[in-house]
């Protein structure tokens, strides 16, 4: 058997991580109905073959509930990270190419948002938007774009001094056309990696905000809700309510990190074969 090389191994890691996450997302989606079912005849069961993760005080199947919760987290993360990254791309590019006035306004906004603790701003926005799914997505989107925007701005500022961009300007290309034709393709790898690395942040913040009770309502199968409920049962020795969902959440966040890192390596020729 041929030894697989570094690049192939990275591709495998990337594909495997994506596949696993896709499975959780799709699986949870199909189990959504089952996750809401309460059945008091099977309450407080420890993990067993029929209920891999046990059941809680209302007889809900924790395995199904955890999967659905993670699936919801990933979808929220997907939406929020997407919106966030797009916002970062637009604002970061605009900041770099649209002149000093625009630049200082956008930089000021970035500093403002970064200056307020994440979780505080998140709670505030989510609460103002009426909590729920919508509130969490808007909250996470509006707080997570700043560092990527700053990165892209710096990158564009550097690009602006590159000879080929200057040449395009001298040849009479408009600023927008230059940005779109010559800069965005150059930024794409940075952007994609940034996008994927936003996921774990978004998911963990979604979990913490629902944990604190500012996100989804408690009958919803969300990972933060599950963890906060499990807290009060730990003292009674019902460890399975917290352990498995917590591990799976940690695993999911770590897998996104794996995917992001692998992608960065693949797109960066210098490290692809290391």
């Amino acid at each position, binding site marked *: 058997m041929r030894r697989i090389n570094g690049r192939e191994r990275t591709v495998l890691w990337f594909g495997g991580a994506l596949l696993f996450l896709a499975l959780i997302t799709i699986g949870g989606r199909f189990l959504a109905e089952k996750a809401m079912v309460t059945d008091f005849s099977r309450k407080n069961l420890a993990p067993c073959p029929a209920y891999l993760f046990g059941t809680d005080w209302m007889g809900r199947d924790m395995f199904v509930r955890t999967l659905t919760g993670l699936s919801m987290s990933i979808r929220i993360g997907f939406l929020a990270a997407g919106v966030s990254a797009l916002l970062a791309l637009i604002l970061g590019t605009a900041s770099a190419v649209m002149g000093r006035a625009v630049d200082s306004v956008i930089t000021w906004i970035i500093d403002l948002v970064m200056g307020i603790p994440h979780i505080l701003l998140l709670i505030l926005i989510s609460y103002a938007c009426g909590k729920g799914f919508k509130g969490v997505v808007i909250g996470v989107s509006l707080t997570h774009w700043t560092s990527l925007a700053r990165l892209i701005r710096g990158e564009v500022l550097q690009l602006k001094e590159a000879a080929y961009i200057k040449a395009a300007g001298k040849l009479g290309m408009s600023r927008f056309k230059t940005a779109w034709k010559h800069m965005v393709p150059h930024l794409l790898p940075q952007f994609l990696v940034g996008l994927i690395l936003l996921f774990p942040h978004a998911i963990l913040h979604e979990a913490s905000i629902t944990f604190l009770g500012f996100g989804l309502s408690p009958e919803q199968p969300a990972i933060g809700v599950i963890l906060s409920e499990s*807290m009060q049962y730990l003292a009674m020795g019902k460890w399975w309510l917290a352990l498995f969902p917590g591990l799976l959440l940690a695993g999911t966040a770590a897998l996104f990190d794996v995917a992001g890192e692998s992608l960065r390596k693949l797109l960066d020729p210098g490290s692809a074969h290391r």
Partner: protein
Amino acid sequence: MKRRSVRYLSLLTALCCSIMFLSACGGGAKAPQGDTPEQTEQAEEASVIVAMGPNSEPEAGFDPACGWGAGEHVHEPLIQSTLTVTNPDLSIGYDLAVDMKASEDGMTWTVTIRDDVKFTDGEPLKASDVAFTYNTVKESSSVNDFTMLEEAVAVDDTTVEFHMAQAYSIWPYTMAIVGIVPEHAYGPDYGRNPIGSGRYLLKQWDKGQQIIFEANPDYYGEEIKMKKVTIVFMEEDAAFAAAKAGQVDLAYTASAYSDQTIDGYELLAFETVDNRGFNLPAVPAGRGKDGAAIGNDFTSDREVRRAVNIGLDRQEMLENVVNGYGTPAYSVCDKMPWYNPSAEVTYDPEAAKAILKEAGWVEGSDGIREKNGVRAAFHLLYPASDSLRQALAADTQNQLRELGIEVTIEGVGWDTAYDRAQAEPLMWGWGAHSPMELYNIYHTLDQGLAGYSPYTNETVDQYMDEALAASDLDTSYELWQKAQWDGITGITQEGDIPWIWLVNIDHLYWSRSSLKVAEQKLHPHGHGWSIVNNVDQWTWQEL
């Protein structure tokens, strides 16, 4: 490869740390500080440490005008004396008062008080202090309604007259919760430095932590057996842990913990009128004056409400949700002197289905009933922070599904709950030591509908008005009962049944085995101060 795994390890560690950090915030538990070493050992004689929930700590201090004793959750004020008290059977007894009577028209109450009572600062307690107290709470109470009182007047040192704005036959129940404050020592900081004539003195208050009471050496009543009472405030899980560690003598707990055991402690369960139930808006869907949704097309059908009431298995609910620690509830005032036992119903799912069918609600293809395009479905709201009510709502959902009714449960905050309950059922908790609760729930307000859930019945209103105008309590009890069911109409199964009552929740406590907690009267809503109503009569016994 190595570097990468180190990074993942650190990511995981960070995650675990953040989870632990969050849990520390979420729990908010405060363990009692170790600065009271005598607490850990079997307490020195005649001293007791009680753990209550953090919400029980009186934010505004021990001022009756700010809700101490007379607030949302009523209890005896301990530091102050009251004119009357409620007996174990919820009839009225005397504390400061030696006699009371209402005028024929109910517009004047004359109360004679003892002449041998002194405040703890040595000043005698006079009728003028009583009048001052009532005029103060009428003016400034933010938590209780005193609009029925016009003015309190001290006639001489031992007689006080209450001039009423409207007849109010159950005034003795109000007098049982208002602690008498001294006119000469009352001011804005009274809440922090209360002076009263009651069984205990406030010795020390470490806000957010503990309150220490000491027996009043000059108390005029029965001998105080428990000389020192320490109240600590902590979350349920912390209270459980504190009992396990032997740091408290009595700790409140919830039914979820009832399958646990603690060495040297026993689980005490006290019956209550702390009920849970949900409202069924009794008018068709529409818009109120301010444009908010009001009423519900499904629950406005009286037959539907009747079917729901007998279609719910309360006994099963008790087993499922509170491990059997509770009693079935059929009204907001079970076992009170003003309760009408005809509210009781037996569980009969077949009859419930028959009622629905007869009323025209027939099953559709998905098993959910329908009538003229209206689906037999409603949202059942519950306060998001209350897992017990969530479980009750979920069980209701499962049980009503059997009848062909689709219930969707939804956790809501109290900021929106009251408004939404006008159109959608909400899982409530009630139960007070006063018939006024019947009035608050079922009597119509100025807009022509009852306040918490839209409902109106003129006959019911009339009985309650008459009950308030009655000249003595016994007559009023009878009228309160008639308001519930008079043989023709009312708010019970045979009547309009605008509220469904499910269970009365037992109040549970871990109690050190050698502690003898005195007999409790039925606890009202609120798992807090009621337990220490008679803490002066608790004793330690040799094991």
